[in-house]
């Protein structure tokens, strides 16, 4: 469970008075298994929020607690443990190792901790998302669409309680978006996990428990 207590990112401090936000400077909780959509225009801090929840950014006032522990107070090894066991992420800028093959990029997240799935699951997921044929190509030469699907599989191959997704379908056509959503819902249901998704577009294919405006 996430608990946000009057979080104001430093870069948005000056703008706080200009618009109303459901999250910034509010006391808010995200319960386990919730499915949350964050909507906001560009530049209002969607990526910042995702990074803060993931523990990548600590430049904010207020506090964020995950399962009762202030994220800011965690040691490097404790944050790593959270990222291996509880928090999964799909970055907007993908963050793949270009010289590793697509399979190796996914495999890395599978074996970083005690594997949640056998390696054969990579093939299964890749087949469902239509990237099976490019699994052994270097990730750097794959198209953005392919890379994004690799990132989705990478995020789903590990154990998690929450999956944070920052514009995860920005490079996918409608059909591939649909396939990816189905897979994500299936995996979250399996784990009884929650997700948070930021997206510029309107979409109705997920059933959200809350839609929040930044």
């Amino acid at each position, binding site marked *: 469970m996430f608990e946000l207590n009057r979080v104001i990112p430093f870069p948005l401090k000056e703008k706080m008075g200009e618009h109303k936000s459901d999250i910034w400077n509010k006391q808010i909780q995200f319960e386990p298994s919730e499915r949350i959509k964050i909507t906001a225009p560009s530049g209002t801090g969607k990526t910042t929020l995702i990074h803060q929840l993931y523990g*990548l950014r600590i430049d904010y006032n207020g506090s964020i607690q995950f399962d009762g522990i202030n994220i800011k107070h965690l040691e*490097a*090894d404790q944050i*790593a*443990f959270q*990222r*291996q066991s509880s928090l999964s992420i799909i970055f907007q800028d993908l*963050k793949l*190792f270009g*010289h*590793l093959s697509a399979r*190796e990029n996914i*495999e*890395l*997240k599978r*074996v*970083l*901790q005690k594997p949640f799935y056998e390696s054969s699951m990579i093939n299964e997921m890749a087949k469902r998302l239509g990237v099976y044929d490019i699994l052994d190509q270097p990730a750097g030469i794959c198209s953005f669409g392919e890379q994004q699907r690799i990132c989705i599989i990478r995020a789903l191959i*590990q154990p998690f309680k929450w999956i944070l997704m920052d514009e995860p379908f920005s490079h996918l056509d409608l059909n591939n978006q649909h396939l990816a959503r189905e897979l994500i819902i299936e995996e979250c249901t399996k784990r009884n996990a929650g997700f948070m998704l930021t997206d510029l577009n309107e979409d109705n294919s997920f059933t959200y428990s809350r839609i929040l405006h930044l």
Partner: protein
Amino acid sequence: MKELKILLSKIIKDSSGRAKLITAIFGLTIAILLLLIAVQLQVNYNYLLNSKTNRDSIADFLVINKEVTDATLGNTQMENSIIKEIKSQPFTEAVGLLIPSRFKASIESNSTQFPFYTDISFESVPPDFIDLSGTNWTWNEQSPFVPIIIPTLFLDFYNFQFSLSQNLPQLTPAIVKMVLFKVTVYGKNSNRSFNGKIVGFSDRISSMLVPTEFMNWGNNLYATDTNTQVSRLIIRTKDPGNPELSKFLKTNKLTTDSDKTRFSKYRKVVDIVVQLSSIIGVILFVFSVLIFTLFIQITIANCKDEIKLLVILGTSPKQLSKFLMGKFFPIYCWLVSFTVFIIMVMQYFLHRVLDTQLIFISQLISPITLFVALFILGAIWWANKKTIQQSVYT
């Protein structure tokens, strides 16, 4: 986990260059080798000085007597007080009393082919101070002969001067040892003859030596005066070049064989060489560890982006540090094992070579050297761990 290790190896490569790695490995090998050689040499050196098997041939024996000057003429006996004082000095390991014969004696040949006769005198010395092994250095009235040790110098004098001038045959030590001489001890009213046999030649004490038992018997029965004071002392010392020893002798107006002190200078040179190689070894070691540390830092710096992304994705610094240690530490293990192996081979051959010169050292590497090798490995491990942790956790 094996799979993770393979993936991390693909991500974190030795992009800092093979040449630098080889230079660092080479430097470190030389450094560790020098250090371990210095340790092993020191161990061998101490063994030579202190072990029972070598002590007699290596440790120095000094014969000490009073300086003969106008002031000391006729009064060169060593008093009990000075003997006690010498015994209590830190440089003294053992003291032996040289007792001179107080009776007249002669030695003559039993052979007509090799006729000679001469008046002689003896000195006696305790068995511990004799540099001949396997000799039964004792005597009683039932003994078949009186064992005698003569200075090697006497045989040289005979072979290279006396025999040539008198047209006599030269003698080998073996022949001399086979000859039975007639030793006669003269008292006031009587005399007594024994068989005498030369049992060995000594470089240590420049007088004709007989067992203490024979000396005591002779002095008791045939002494011309009752003065039984000690004429000279023999001491065993680790370091005849010890300045304390020279100072003590000078203060008490005592003299000794100056040739022996010259040997100590050679030993000092060995000491300096050993110390120098330790110092050079330590300096090289520090520099090589520094090179290796820099090498690791460069490797990490070159893979900074990859390491950052790994951490973002959830790789723990502990996992990274373990991987990096696993990448570099086996190199050190191989390297130290290799140098230990070299030292083992060197020690074995040194043992074989010295054995032929009757200098005995162990054929096996010393546990102290192995301990130092492990200590070096521990020091490198610690330095690496610190470097990696600093780079990974910041």
